């Protein structure tokens, strides 16, 4: 009954991403290649910190005490992030706040399972964040698939696709555990060891290969920023 030809849907490029010729308001026609034109397509570069150690230490301290989280709830764990904003947990007192745009955030919390579809968005969001940036993996799913270990549509090892600084065990971790994770991340940042963004730039080909292996309809430039 398994008929590859009729059942397997090839992945066509979406219409809005196809190369096309458009007519501008001034009457001139020009070609548009959305994948090339609408994004800044540049390879990430390794950005070393300041060479003056005391300055870098000061910067790292500032980075650690000012964690701006990208408010992108990828999985069920997002529900555990919300209480942190409430008066009950009041994460703001730890210098943690949520930003709605990846441009302003330095911390990407992957809150649980990532479906392939979400992974694509997560990668884009991550790449749009500004260096230095950090990733925290929340719960079993990010470590080894969790309860979706046999799912056809979720990735199992987050660190195959994004550089992860800290993992927090749980399914899901309680808000307190999250805070503990952030505190650990702060410690790592202060120690100058949270160089995920540079790691990503260094191993860019490896990460891309992994990402493209699971994202079958890759229709964006290799680096979005």
């Amino acid at each position, binding site marked *: 009954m398994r008929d590859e030809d009729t059942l397997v849907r090839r992945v066509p490029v979406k219409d809005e991403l196809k190369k096309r010729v458009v007519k501008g308001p001034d009457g001139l026609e020009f070609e548009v290649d959305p994948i090339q034109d609408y994004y800044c397509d540049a390879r990430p570069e390794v950005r070393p910190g300041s060479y003056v150690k005391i300055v870098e230490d000061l910067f790292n301290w500032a980075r650690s*005490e000012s964690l701006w989280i990208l408010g992108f709830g990828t999985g069920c764990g997002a529900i555990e992030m919300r209480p942190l904003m409430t008066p009950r947990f009041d994460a703001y007192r730890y210098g943690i706040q949520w930003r709605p*745009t990846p441009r302003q955030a330095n911390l990407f919390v992957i809150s649980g399972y990532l479906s392939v579809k979400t992974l694509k968005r997560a990668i884009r969001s991550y790449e749009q964040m*500004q260096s230095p940036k950090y990733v925290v993996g929340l719960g079993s799913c990010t470590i080894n698939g969790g309860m979706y270990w046999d799912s056809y549509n979720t990735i199992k090892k987050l660190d195959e696709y994004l550089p992860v600084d800290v993992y927090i065990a749980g399914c899901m971790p309680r808000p307190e555990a999250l805070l503990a994770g952030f505190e650990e991340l702060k410690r790592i940042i202060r120690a100058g060891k949270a160089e995920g963004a540079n790691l990503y730039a260094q191993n860019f080909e490896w990460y891309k290969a992994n990402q493209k292996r699971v994202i079958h309809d890759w229709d964006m430039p290799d680096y979005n920023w």
Partner: protein
Amino acid sequence: MTFDWMKIPYALLTLFIVLNYGLLLTALIQKIGARAGRRHGIPIWQNYVDLLKNYALRTHITHGVMYYLGPVFRLSGGVGLLLFVPSIYGSEMFSNLSFAGDLILALYFIFFGTLGMALGAGESGHPHAAIGVSRGLSQVTAAELPLALAVFAVALQYQTLSVTDIVAAQQGGFTHWTVFTNPLAVAAAMLSFLGSMMRPPFDVVLAPQEIPIGPPTEYHSSYLALMQTNRAIFPVAKMVIYMNLFFGGATSWPVFFVKVFLLYLFSAFVGVVFPRFRVEQSIRWFLIWAVPIGIAAILIV
């Protein structure tokens, strides 16, 4: 008219004091707001840390010249507003670069930053930014209307366009303050004040909790830090205007601090307890409540 070059370092000193005061003030107000929400809130030095962090980011991307100039315009709006308005009445040191027609310039500067921001954000190409810009401009225009009316009323009342003169006219006891001599104008201005302080219920444009954060969507690292700097200076500068126009100005730094703090607290007082208005709601609100009061103020004068 001879220009006293010493005014420049003095103005920069003012700027420095106001910047620090602004950073601490916004944090303090946030803390007070947090306490009203029964939580601890941010540490008082959080603004410094955030600022430092954003300046320390290693990468930044640009979307063109206007995009770069946006925050610069915005900051110069704030700085300009501050510098052309006397902060301390009667002090040679802190009268800054005020001159006879500075009231008009001040009104212009209030709008200037927003416009620059709008241009820069538009350049970023992000749809959320464009939405934010259109929202922001419509709201600011609506909020600016009652303020302009109130300022006209005050200018008519004192027959001058110099802030220094207006402050001078209010000296000699608090009953001389505009708030008592022309309460309607002050009422209109204070309603406008709520709208322009970017606090609830009128903060939909910039609220960091909104998914389309508005004009700053694409701004980050040092661009954002510039805007943050402005966000510390600009409200203070604006409150200086309000203080000078309506509340008798300040004759010394302590009075300055207290009055600005109380003014800021006023916006927070409303902002902490009310939910956000949508843009069309807030425009309607300004047109129905604030503008008539402003017109009434002019008519009475």
